């Protein structure tokens, strides 16, 4: 088998490079990261004529080889290092026919590295509408290479491109301009020092701090000679180089590229007038946001319920049908539940990225960035932080992933770090049950106290995120000035295929990246909740059965039984007296309704077991720590288990109070009945507010930690988030409880 041809796909952002990549490779693509950095690496295999194959590497979009970001330096590094395994046999530079002049700048730079370079002029379907005519043969002659005119929308020109890649050996590798004319004496000096290097490669090495090992291995004093010019001088020369390149491009296009403005028309001006309008622009943006929330909150609810039910059914089937034992328990309660905990997020992530891809592809996203930049700036954020922060109200996981569009690392990092403060949908079940418990009904000025509390919690979350962004902006010492420069691309109908690929790829990267960590922690939590080291834990069944025999059920279980008996004998209307004689009633229930009796016993055993499991001990161990916040050890357990995800809090309390039902009303009643040794209710206003504030600030979501680790490529930032957010949460809860109690 012959070796695959190595092809590097290069181009400015917004030239449809990804569409070309998708058409060349189909679904034969793989997305990963470049080692050590968070820049996405996309590669794929393309079948060429006559049985050959090409390995296509889709390099990050860049305007030039004079790099200003991590994404861009990946491009320069690969193209300058011919020992790199990704070093291309042939480069394919993708241009947008409407911005050919600007796009050619990058082309001339690649060509000067003496890599055979094919020019793809994309979006040829727009030529007639824009009044553009091209003289391809003349252009090929002037640029000294082959040109493929492509329309990914109409699927034209791809075959010719494949043919050109196949015949890449026929391409010239002559540079397009002689960069030595930038400063002849300096270049001759450089070339004397490094006779083996092409002039332009030397120039790139001098002008930027590219990590290029073969050169640094030389004598350091020689390397220092390279830097003999001051930074300002080099910058001036870079400006000169850009002017020279534009002169070359203007000369090339003068005869071969004609644009007749009378035929040029497009929706840009009209759409911009509305979409970036000082009032309508915001109205439309808010309307779109509301649509996105609707999708993430409501529409994804159906598939999420379905997933929830299927995994619950699967777990139940497993524990009923496999031989009982540790392995079955692990499978049913640890692994299946853990995988369910990952899969449950897929609908929200898919919906969010569906919208993101549509907004991005259509060109609208740049307008949002334009509208919001000034508003976000005082907080150390950028217009590009808006979408992640807004998505955070649905779920922090897709929101953290959405921060990838921010090119300044500092702004991106700040956005990632503050996103988890926004009130995500997982906090809702906790808030709702606590509000119902401790906030009185009633209204002020027509707004109910309960609704106002919920709204305040949302505002607190938002305030916490922008304020901490401000603080981080002050204290984070990250190099690199951020230059705000956003291209406003033409409006286009999104290509279905591109949108689909984005959704599939982002979802996959969540499931494979964060999913592993979520699964692992779920298994650990399951283990801690299902095992203990005391006699009580292992003899729970005996102890609890004996207790029931002697003392009867706990008051709450009695209520549970009474309720169920009543509902079964509905219509009779005769409520069973709760203060019934314990023993005889027990017998009565046992005889009449064995299922109900067994359920009640099982609930009490589960509760007793949880109390005596590792997690139960952990809850008791942290009681001294959480007592100043107004929590007892039972709430402590809830706080620990809900580290997996906030909504687990409600479920854990259900188990611990042996409610045996996820029905909110039942849990609420049980929580209301819970008293302290002093006889006062546990869930009073002070504890309730303290808990709500704790959940508002605490980093109680391992999935978010996992995704932050993935996106920042280090445990440092998730650890920072976990520690700082927990401290803030603790202090807020402490102050609230101590003031209100």
């Amino acid at each position, binding site marked *: 088998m012959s070796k695959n041809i190595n092809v590097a796909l290069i181009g400015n952002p917004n030239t449809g490079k990804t569409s070309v990549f998708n058409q060349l490779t189909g679904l034969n693509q793989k997305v990963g990261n470049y080692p050590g950095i968070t820049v996405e690496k996309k590669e794929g295999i393309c079948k060429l004529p006559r049985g050959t194959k090409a390995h296509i590497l889709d390099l990050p979009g860049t*305007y*030039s080889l*004079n790099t*200003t970001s991590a994404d861009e330096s990946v491009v320069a590094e690969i193209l300058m290092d011919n020992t790199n395994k990704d070093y291309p046999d042939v480069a394919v530079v993708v241009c947008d026919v*409407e*911005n050919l*002049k*600007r796009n050619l*700048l990058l082309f001339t730079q690649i060509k000067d590295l003496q890599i055979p370079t094919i020019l793809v002029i994309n979006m040829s379907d727009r030529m007639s509408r824009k009044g553009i005519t091209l003289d391809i043969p003349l252009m090929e002659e002037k640029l000294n290479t082959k040109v493929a005119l492509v329309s990914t929308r109409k699927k034209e020109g791809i075959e010719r491109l494949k043919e050109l890649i196949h015949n890449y050996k026929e391409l010239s590798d002559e540079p397009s301009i002689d960069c030595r004319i930038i400063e002849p004496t300096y270049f001759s000096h450089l070339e004397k020092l490094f006779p083996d290097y092409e002039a332009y490669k030397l120039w790139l090495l001098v002008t930027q701090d590219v990590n290029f090992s073969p050169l640094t291995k030389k004598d350091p004093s020689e390397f220092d000679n390279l830097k003999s010019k001051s930074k*300002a001088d080099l*910058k*001036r020369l*870079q*400006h000169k180089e*850009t*002017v020279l390149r*534009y002169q070359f491009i203007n000369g090339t296009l003068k005869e071969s590229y004609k644009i007749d*403005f009378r035929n040029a028309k497009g929706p*840009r001006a009209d759409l*911009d007038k509305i979409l*970036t309008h*000082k009032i309508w622009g*915001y109205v439309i943006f808010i309307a779109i946001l509301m649509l996105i929330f609707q999708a993430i909150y409501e529409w994804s609810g159906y598939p999420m319920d379905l997933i929830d039910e299927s995994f619950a059914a699967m777990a139940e089937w497993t524990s009923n049908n496999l031989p009982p034992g540790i392995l079955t328990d692990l499978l049913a309660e640890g692994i299946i539940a853990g995988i369910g905990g990952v899969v449950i997020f897929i609908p929200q992530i898919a919906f969010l990225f569906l919208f993101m891809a549509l907004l991005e592809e259509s060109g609208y996203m*740049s307008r949002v*960035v*334009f*509208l919001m*930049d*000034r508003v976000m700036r005082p907080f150390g954020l950028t*217009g590009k932080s808006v979408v992640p922060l807004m998505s955070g109200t649905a779920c922090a996981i897709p929101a953290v992933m959405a921060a990838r569009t921010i090119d300044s690392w500092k702004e991106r990092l700040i956005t990632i770090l503050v996103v988890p403060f926004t009130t995500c949908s997982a906090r809702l079940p906790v808030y709702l049950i606590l509000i119902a418990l401790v906030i009185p009904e009633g209204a002020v000025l027509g707004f109910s106290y309960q609704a106002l509390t919920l709204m305040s919690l949302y505002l607190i979350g938002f305030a916490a995120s922008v304020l901490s962004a401000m603080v981080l902006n002050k204290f984070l010492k990250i190099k690199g000035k951020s*230059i*705000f*420069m*956003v*291209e*406003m*691309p*033409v409006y286009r109908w999104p290509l279905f295929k591109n949108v689909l690929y984005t959704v599939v790829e982002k979802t996959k990267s969540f499931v494979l990246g964060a999913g592993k960590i979520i699964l692992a922690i779920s298994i650990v939590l399951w283990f801690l909740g299902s095992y203990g080291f005391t006699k009580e834990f292992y003899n729970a069944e005996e102890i609890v059965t004996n207790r029931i025999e002697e003392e009867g059920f706990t008051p709450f279980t009695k209520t549970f039984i009474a309720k169920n008996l009543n509902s079964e004998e509905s219509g009779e209307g005769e409520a069973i007296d709760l203060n019934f004689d314990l023993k005889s009633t027990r017998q009565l229930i046992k005889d009449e309704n064995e299922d109900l009796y067994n359920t009640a016993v099982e609930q009490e055993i589960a509760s007793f077991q949880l109390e005596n499991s590792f997690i139960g001990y952990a809850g008791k161990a942290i009681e001294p720590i959480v007592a100043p916040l107004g929590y007892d050890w039972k709430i402590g357990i809830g706080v620990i288990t809900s580290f997996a995800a906030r909504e687990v809090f409600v479920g854990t309390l259900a188990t611990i109070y042996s409610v045996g039902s996820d029905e909110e009303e039942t849990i609420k009643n049980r929580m209301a009945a819970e008293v302290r040794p002093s006889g006062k209710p546990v869930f009073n206003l002070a504890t309730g507010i303290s808990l709500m504030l704790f959940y508002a600030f605490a980093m109680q979501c391992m999935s978010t930690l996992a995704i932050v680790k993935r996106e920042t490529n280090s445990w440092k930032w998730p650890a920072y988030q976990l520690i700082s957010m927990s401290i803030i949460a603790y202090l807020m809860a402490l102050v609230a409880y101590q003031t209100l109690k």
Partner: protein
Amino acid sequence: MSITVATLKKGQKGVIKDFTDNDLPIKLLELGCLPGNTVELVQRAPLNDPIYINVNGSHIAIRTDLAQKIELDLIEADHQQ
């Protein structure tokens, strides 16, 4: 006060004369923001910042602090295409 991209009114055009700062980001030049090329102000965001310009066919948004560094010769309205 000299005319810069930041002082343009919506719809106004000018030809780039010079930069007041040699430290202008190279990216801006590469997008076609070079002396001799035409700049048109397409739109201003609320609070006048950032601004949305068309320079040499490239449509970009930049903040006003950067726009202030690009000096212009104004093109009178009747010369416009």
